[in-house]
């Protein structure tokens, strides 16, 4: 049963990401992106990453997706009911992307990463992440806080009418 659910989520991610990449309507693409984000949260649950799954839903679906919808609504005439989008150089792009995908897969798949070790079944990642965040990763954590402050001030300054 868990196997079946895993492959359903797997297919959901691929299908919705394909709609993001190939869809003609910007609004449809944003809603497909929500499917991708929720699917990735499901994949995190299969990987025993409980904290990351919740963070994914809160930050991506609750934050970034809303920002993207705001971006679309503020940069299009809402009265034109269909917000279409176009692509350029589709064939060339497809060739390049398929080449990159082939390179990635041929580089990654033949290698035996796992060996004979069993996968680690994390039971509670929140405690471990919290401990690491305030010991080994403390500098990175402080840099991240400064970066977020910079992004907050920068975005607020840039978005004002008069610069």
């Amino acid at each position, binding site marked *: 049963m868990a196997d079946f659910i895993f492959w359903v989520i797997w297919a959901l991610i691929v299908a919705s990401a*394909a709609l993001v*990449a190939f869809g003609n309507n910007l609004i449809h693409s944003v809603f497909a992106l929500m499917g*991708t984000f929720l699917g990735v949260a499901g994949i*995190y649950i299969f990987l025993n990453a409980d904290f990351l799954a919740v963070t994914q839903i809160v930050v991506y679906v609750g934050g*970034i997706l809303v920002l993207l919808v705001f971006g679309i609504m*503020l940069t299009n005439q809402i009265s034109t009911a269909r917000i279409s989008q176009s692509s350029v150089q589709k064939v060339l792009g497809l060739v390049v992307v398929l080449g990159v995908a082939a390179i990635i897969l041929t580089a990654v798949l033949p290698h035996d990463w796992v060996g004979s070790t069993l996968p680690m079944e994390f039971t509670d990642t929140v405690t471990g992440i919290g401990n690491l965040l305030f010991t080994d990763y403390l500098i*990175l954590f402080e840099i991240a806080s400064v970066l977020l402050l910079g992004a907050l001030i920068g975005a607020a300054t*840039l978005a004002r*009418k008069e610069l």
Partner: protein
Amino acid sequence: MDHLSSYLVLSAILFSLGLYTVVTRRNAVAILMGVELILNAANINFVAFSKFVTHNLDGHLMSVFIIMLAAAEAAVALAIVLNLYNDRGHINVDEANALKQ
């Protein structure tokens, strides 16, 4: 679901679709969506390797920082996109070439 390769293939597909979105879309917001797809692909790899190969939480920490970076990047990028729209009336990146002229 118990094999690393199923996650690696998923991540490669997600990355390729994100890359295709970035290189072919003209709309700046759509390009931003492609960037988010690429970052999600990287996150899946980090967490999968954390479970199957390294057996510690370092990959999770990297994913937390990537998610944080994605949020900051989306906020700043949308502010830039709004300025582009105020300036030109559209957000097609292939026509935003004022520095070239």
